[in-house]
C-alpha cells in the first residue's frame, strides 16, 4: 500500500512503529499543536490505557490534558460532548467499544444531532476512540464490532483504519473534522508494525484505498479483515487468480466511487467484515453495488463473509470460527472468481 496516496502534508521521513504507537504519536502531535485538545478516558493516565495506547502521554502533558475519568461511560462521553460544544476538542477513549453501549444516548441522540437540531448554530468536534473486535479471548461483552450501528447514524463519521499510517492519519483527520467522528481500532492490530510518516499529516475520511490491484474479483474489507484478505489474495495469485482488495477505511460516509469502479472492472464482489453478518457493513456495500450502475457488470451473486450470528464465544477455537479467517476468504473468493457461485 502506498501510504503517500492518502497523506496530505506529511514529512518525507517515515519511522517504523506499531499501530498503537502511531495513534499515540497522533495524539501527542495534536496535544502539542492545539491547546484545546484533551484526552479523556478510564485509566488513560498512569495506567497508559487498557491497551497501552495513551502510554506515557500523561507524563508528557499532565493530568489536565490526559484525564482519567471515573467508570461512567454515559457521563464521560457526555462531558466530552459538552466540552466539544463549548470550545475543547476532546478525544474520549472507551476501554472497549462494547462499553459504548452505555453511551449511545450521548453519542447518537446528542453528539450526532446537535448541529442539526440547532440548525447549524452549534458544533460538536469530538472524537470517540473504540478498541474493537474479537480474537483476544475476552468473550461476548468485550469483543463486539459495532461499526454498523454508528454507520447507520447521520451526523457521525465512522472510520476503521487498518494500518499504523492510516491510524495516525485518520485520527488527525478526525480531530480536524468539525463534527463527531468514531474511530474503531482493532485490538489485534495494536501490535502490528508499519512505516509511519513523521510529523503532521491527515488521511482523508471518506476515501477507500485499493490496496491490491486485480481483475478477477473485488474484495472489500475493513480493519483486520484487510490483512486477511491480502493474505488470501496472495495465495490466490499463486493460482493465477488476481483479486482486487479494497481497504474500506471509512464506514460513514462510504466511498461509493472506489467500490463501484472496482466492481465494474471485476464483475464480482466479496464483502468481508468482522461484525455480525446480518445488517453488518457488508450488507450496505452489497446493497449500494446492487442498486448502482455496477449492477449490470455483476457476473455472479454478491458474496458476504461476516461474523457468525452468535455472541463471540470464549473458547479460542470457537472464537476463531465466529469471524472470517483468511482461508474462508480465499475459498469464497476462489469460487467466485471461478464462476462456481
Amino acid at each position, binding site marked *: 500500500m502506498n501510504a503517500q496516496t492518502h497523506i496530505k502534508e506529511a514529512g518525507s521521513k517515515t519511522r517504523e512503529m506499531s499501530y498503537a504507537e502511531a495513534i499515540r504519536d497522533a495524539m501527542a502531535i495534536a496535544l502539542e499543536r492545539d491547546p484545546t485538545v484533551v484526552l479523556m478516558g478510564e485509566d488513560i493516565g498512569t495506567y497508559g490505557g487498557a491497551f497501552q495506547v495513551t502510554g506515557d502521554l500523561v507524563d508528557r502533558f499532565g493530568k489536565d490534558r490526559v484525564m482519567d475519568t471515573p467508570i461512567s461511560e*454515559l*457521563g*464521560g462521553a*457526555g*462531558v466530552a460532548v*459538552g466540552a466539544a*460544544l463549548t470550545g475543547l476538542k476532546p478525544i474520549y477513549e472507551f476501554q472497549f467499544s462494547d462499553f459504548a453501549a452505555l453511551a449511545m444516548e450521548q453519542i447518537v441522540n446528542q453528539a450526532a444531532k446537535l448541529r*442539526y437540531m440547532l440548525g447549524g448554530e452549534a458544533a460538536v468536534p469530538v472524537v470517540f476512540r473504540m478498541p474493537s473486535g474479537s480474537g483476544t479471548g475476552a468473550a461476548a461483552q468485550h469483543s463486539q464490532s459495532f461499526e454498523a450501528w454508528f454507520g447507520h447514524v447521520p451526523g457521525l463519521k465512522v472510520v476503521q483504519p487498518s494500518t499504523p499510517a492510516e491510524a495516525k492519519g485518520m485520527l488527525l483527520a478526525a480531530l480536524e473534522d468539525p463534527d463527531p467522528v468514531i474511530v474503531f481500532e482493532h485490538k489485534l492490530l495494536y501490535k502490528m508494525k508499519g512505516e509511519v510518516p513523521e510529523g503532521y499529516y491527515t488521511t482523508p475520511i471518506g476515501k477507500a484505498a485499493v490496496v491490491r490491484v486485480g481483475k478477477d474479483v473485488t474484495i472489500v474489507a475493513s480493519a483486520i479483515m484487510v490483512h486477511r484478505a491480502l493474505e488470501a489474495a496472495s495465495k490466490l495469485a499463486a493460482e493465477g487468480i488476481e483479486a482486487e482488495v479494497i481497504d474500506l477505511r471509512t464506514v460513514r460516509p462510504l466511498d461509493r466511487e472506489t467500490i463501484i469502479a472496482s466492481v465494474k472492472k471485476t464483475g464480482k464482489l466479496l464483502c468481508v467484515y468482522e461484525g455480525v453478518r446480518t445488517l453488518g457493513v457488508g450488507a450496505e456495500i452489497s446493497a449500494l453495488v446492487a442498486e448502482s450502475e455496477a449492477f449490470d457488470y455483476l457476473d455472479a451473486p454478491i458474496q458476504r463473509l461476516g461474523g457468525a450470528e452468535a455472541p463471540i464465544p470464549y473458547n479460542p477455537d470457537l472464537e476463531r470460527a465466529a469471524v472470517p479467517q483468511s482461508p474462508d476468504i480465499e475459498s469464497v473468493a476462489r469460487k467466485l472468481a471461478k464462476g462456481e457461485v
Partner: protein
Amino acid sequence: MARDAQENLPFAIRHFSPEALKEALRKMHLIRLFEEGAEESYMRGLIHGTMHLSIGQEASAVATCMELTDADKITSTHRGHGHCIAKGADVGRMFAEFFGKETGYCHGRGGSMHIADVKTGNLGANGIVGGGLPIAVGAGLTAKRLGRDDVTVCFFGDGANNEGAFHEALNMASIWKLPVIFVCENNKYGMSTAAAYATAVPNISDRAAAYSMPGVTVDGNDFSAVAEALHIAIARARAGEGPSLVENLTYRWRGHSKSDRNRYRTKDEIEDWMSRDPIQRFRAELIAHGVLDEAGAEAVEAAAKDAVAQGIEFAKAGPAPAITDVTKFVHAEAAA
C-alpha cells in the same frame, strides 16, 4: 437606608438594582405570555408536535438566570421555554422556531424541544430527560481548562434526578471541582409520576451529600429565595470551589404536555398552587418595596404583551425551510 433595615429586606431587593428587578418582572411576564401565546398557536394549528409549558415556574427560570451573563452557559430541558427567555432569547425567533420557520433559532429543525440560543449562552433544551446533565459538566470543564470564569447552570427536573446521567454528572463535576450549578426544578411530578414515589429521598437536594457538594432546597416560587441560592452557588463556582445543587420547589399549572389528561393530581392541588402565582407574588413584592408602582407594573406587563404579539407576527412572516434542505446542517458545510 440603615444597614439593619437593609438586612431585613429580601435578598433580591437588597442585591439587585431596580432596573434589574423590573427587567426580571418583565421576563416573568414574558414567559407567561409566551407560553400562553404558544398554547394558543398550538390550538390554532400553527405549532405541531408537542410542547411542555412552564406556566407556574417563571420565578425559578428567571431568578436562576439573574446573575448570569451571556458568557455563562445553561443547559435546558424539554420544559425549556422559560429558561430560554430568562437567558435572553428573543421571543420572535422562538415563535419562528415553533412555527417551523427558517428564521427560528434552529432554522425550523429543532422546534420546542430543542430550542436554543447559543449566543446568549443557552446550549439548548433537550428531548432526552437528563441529557443535558453531562453536557453541562463538559461546559464546566471547558471553562476550567481554558481558564475562563464563566459558570454553567444545568436545569433538570425531579424526574431526571433518577437517571444514571445525574449520578455520573454530579460525581464528575464534584471530583474535578467544576463551575457547574445543578438546578433541579422539582415540580412534584415527572410526567404523571410523583417524585414522592419515584425518588427514594424526600428532597432531591438530599442527594448532594452523595457528591460532597452543597445542596439546598428553596421555595422555587419565591424569586428572592432562588436568586439568593444561586448567588451563593455561583460565587462558589466562580471561586473554583466546585459545583452545587439547588432544588427549586415549584409547580406546573398545565399538564405535562399536550396529551396529558391530568389523572394523577387533584384539582385542589392545582388550584392551591395557582393561588400562589410566582409572578403576582414577585410583582407585589416589588411594589411593596417601592421598586415600581401598580402602573409601572402594568406597563411592564403591557410591554411583554406587545413583545409576544410582535413575536408571533415576526414568526408568521418568516419563510419555511426549503423542502430540499433536509440534509442541510447534518454536517458543517465545508465538510459535508
